């Protein structure tokens, strides 16, 4: 049975799309502006710019001083943030209903009139902040580079998903103020933006406020790039060994999957659930409970829009177990999933888990706004949030089996092996560690 979250959509004369989901259970409104620009829109040599904007958009605009966007809203009980991914950049606020108009005025000013305030000084400062963000999130934590490696291995060099959103620090430091201004003009505008409001607001009020504060935005954006040709599974297996100081040896088995809108995507996601996401999943039962060769196993899917997605199986190898034993066992189970399909329990658990977690996400205004924006832009229909669970229930075991047989074959896997220094070659490793710490051997 479809869910019945209310959804009202319209388009302003300047092309900005508006989606409203009215809910008066608490006196607050969540605002999402989904801009159709992510790392996949970046040009070679200019990576990291989409994410840099997530920072620059808080540095002031024509009528708003540096930092004021956040501080004005905070003083009214508003929370604001932004995130960047492969396909999009989102700007979000959660505000008491009485501050909604202020939030939209602030968004109108920065989405329409950012450039007068985008100076060399705040470009330089936010570049420094991004360098520290990269160090904190990716460079100083174990396995922090996993996603970057996965994208490089799984997607061809000229593919939009070959690089991750944080981008190259060399590209970022090479970017001039003019490059950055040009990026804004090319990608930010009403025709690339979808505004979603969820909460204590009527569709009529929403429309009036959106017209008032975002209706005047002019479009300078370039047409969105033509979709990339769909990719099939990796034509042959690839592997990368990374030796370093990690707390346990870890395997990432990475798969190309179809685009998130492809009918095969959901069966692939459910196959990965059946393999590893749940306690009833076969890899969890076999490797973690019975053979005890791993101390952790999980699966995740990154559903992407442009012709391909990414699927990951992650396994923490138990101490003194040879990772190749684990890898061989995973390959066996991949093959078996492609031949036998999921068990009834795996399938039922995957459906039940998806139902609960989807409803949990929709329970919050913030997440509901994000999912509505994603449904509107990626799936072309905000009602997708109401029908998604029906799509999940409709997936059969046979569809899951076929998806696994096509997309999750050992012959199509990119494997990243994080190896411990001691697991490889004691002498070489000891020399590397001493060299790295600057102590003469």
């Amino acid at each position, binding site marked *: 049975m479809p869910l019945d979250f209310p959804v009202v959509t319209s388009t302003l004369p300047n092309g900005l799309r508006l989606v409203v989901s009215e809910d008066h259970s608490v006196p607050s409104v969540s605002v999402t502006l989904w801009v159709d620009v992510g790392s996949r829109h970046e040009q070679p040599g200019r990576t990291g710019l989409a994410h840099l904007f997530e920072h620059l958009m808080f540095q002031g605009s024509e009528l708003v001083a540096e930092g004021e966007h956040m501080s004005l809203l905070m003083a009214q009980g508003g929370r604001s943030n932004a995130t960047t991914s492969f396909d999009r950049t989102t700007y979000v606020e959660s505000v008491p209903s009485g*501050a909604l108009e202020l939030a939209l005025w602030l968004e109108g000013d920065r989405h329409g009139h950012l450039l007068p305030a985008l100076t060399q000084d705040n470009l330089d400062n936010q570049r420094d902040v991004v360098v520290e963000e990269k160090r904190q999130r990716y460079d100083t934590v174990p396995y922090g580079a996993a996603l970057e490696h996965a994208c490089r291995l799984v997607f061809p060099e000229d593919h939009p998903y070959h690089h991750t959103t944080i981008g190259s620090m060399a590209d970022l430091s090479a970017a001039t103020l003019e490059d950055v201004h040009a990026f804004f003009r090319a990608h930010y505008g009403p025709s690339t933006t979808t505004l979603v409001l969820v909460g204590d607001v009527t569709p009529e009020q929403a429309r009036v406020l959106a017209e008032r504060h975002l209706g005047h935005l002019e479009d300078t954006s370039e047409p969105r790039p033509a979709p990339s040709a769909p990719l099939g599974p990796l034509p042959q297996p690839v592997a990368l060994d990374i030796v370093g100081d990690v707390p346990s040896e870890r395997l990432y088995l990475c798969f190309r999957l179809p685009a998130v809108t492809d009918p095969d995507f959901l069966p692939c996601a459910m196959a990965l659930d059946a393999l590893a996401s749940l306690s009833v999943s076969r890899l969890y039962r076999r490797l973690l409970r019975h053979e005890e060769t791993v101390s952790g196993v999980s699966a995740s899917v990154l559903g992407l829009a442009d012709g391909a997605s990414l699927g990951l199986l992650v396994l923490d190898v138990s*101490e003194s177990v040879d990772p190749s034993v684990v890898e061989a066992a995973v390959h066996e189970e991949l093959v078996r999933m492609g031949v036998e399909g999921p068990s009834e329990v795996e399938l039922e658990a995957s459906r*039940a888990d998806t139902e609960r977690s989807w409803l949990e996400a929709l329970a919050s205004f913030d997440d509901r706004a994000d999912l509505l924006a994603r449904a509107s832009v990626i799936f072309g229909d905000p009602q997708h949030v109401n029908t998604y669970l029906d799509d999940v229930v409709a997936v059969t075991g046979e569809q899951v089996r076929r998806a696994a047989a096509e997309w999750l074959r050992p012959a199509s896997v990119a494997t990243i092996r994080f190896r411990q220094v001691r697991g490889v070659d004691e002498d070489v490793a000891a020399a590397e560690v001493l060299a790295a710490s600057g102590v003469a051997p």
Partner: protein
Amino acid sequence: MHRPAVLPPRAWAFPEPAEHPLPNGMRLLLVDLPGQHVLSLRVVLALPVSQEVPGTEGATLLMTRALDEGTARHTSEEIAELSERHGIAWGAGAGERGVHLGVEVTARHLGTALDLVTECLTEATFPEAEVARLVRHRLADIAHDQADPGARASLEFIRTYFDPRDRPHQPLGGTRASVAALDPDVLRDRHASLTPAGGAVVLTGDLSACGDVVAAVAATLGSWAGSGGPAEAPAAARRADDAGRVVLVERPGLAQTELYLGRPGPDRRTPHGWGTYQTLGMVLGGSPHARIDQVLREERGYTYGVRAGFRPRATGGLTVAGGSVRADATVPALRELLDILAVPGAELTEPEVRAAADFVSMTAPGRYGTADAVADEIVSLVSDGLEPRVVTATLEQLRGLTAAQVGAAWDEVLAGPGWTVVLVGDPQHAAGLQDLGIGPVSVVTGS
């Protein structure tokens, strides 16, 4: 165009739970939240970790996590299957005062969830093989924590700050040595100390389709007798005599240095009012434009973010600040951070205090918009011996809060013992730390 005026916030109060006594003496706290289709069920039980037998630290947490690893009626795998086929997600945790179990479940599977949680509480058997597996996984988690600069800093902090005679000196989940020593008998002993006395069941979400929930809970969790004696209060958490010092955990070549600063702070019963400290946390380190990041992030570009706040305990608590900074700026960043934190209360301004207090009070409706957020707040309060109406009372206090009141509370923190400073980073920073004049500096190995 002019900036739009902001309309006054609509009236809102934290939902007042309906309270029902259960047959075993536990309180049942119900909050009906129409439209919240996933229910949050929590069981909160008093069981202080300070009662753990020395050498078995971590037993409370592991016992709680092992409750669904086998009962007199079902094996671990059967429980997993029963849960997941009904979309029931489990959570379990331990804190200073006690343990909590939680499940998230859709309304139509609430009955199954209540039966399962009751069965696990009543009949958990702690099978040898499952406990051994959980011990191994917990040891792997500890290794991962040791490798993560942020987690490593907080481990070193408690070891430096808390008196070695007291339980908080050791990690809540235990050390490698204490966890390795855990076996089914230790967990069974911990389980035998569980009692419904002083405990609570919290259930939030859209209850309209659940029938008579009071009867359903009374017949399940309300029938659990437990075997422990009356619940005790947690033991002391004294500051070590030599806590006023600097410890650098060596991590050669680390691109950033993790900073973790702490000194005494209040508990939630503070006469200044808890909202005063929530406001202080925002003013000092609650956003990119708070006092700390305005300088360290926005002016200097040293960091992605350094935060400050307060961690309440049963008695007293901690004032903490921390984050990671560019390695080559370690000493200047720490110096500036200490300067910023030394601001006398009288210098906190009325506008910054008002903005911070308004942020804390006016974000409440949005923060408590979901069943799990409401349940978690109630759990956090009742397990700390406070009533849910404290949320609304705190919000009222915030509306009238002045800079003078906030300044006085901060001055009290500054008048107490000074900072314990932990860094995780390259050992070359040690020399510069000596010059800061904040106590003796020691360097410890990273593992």
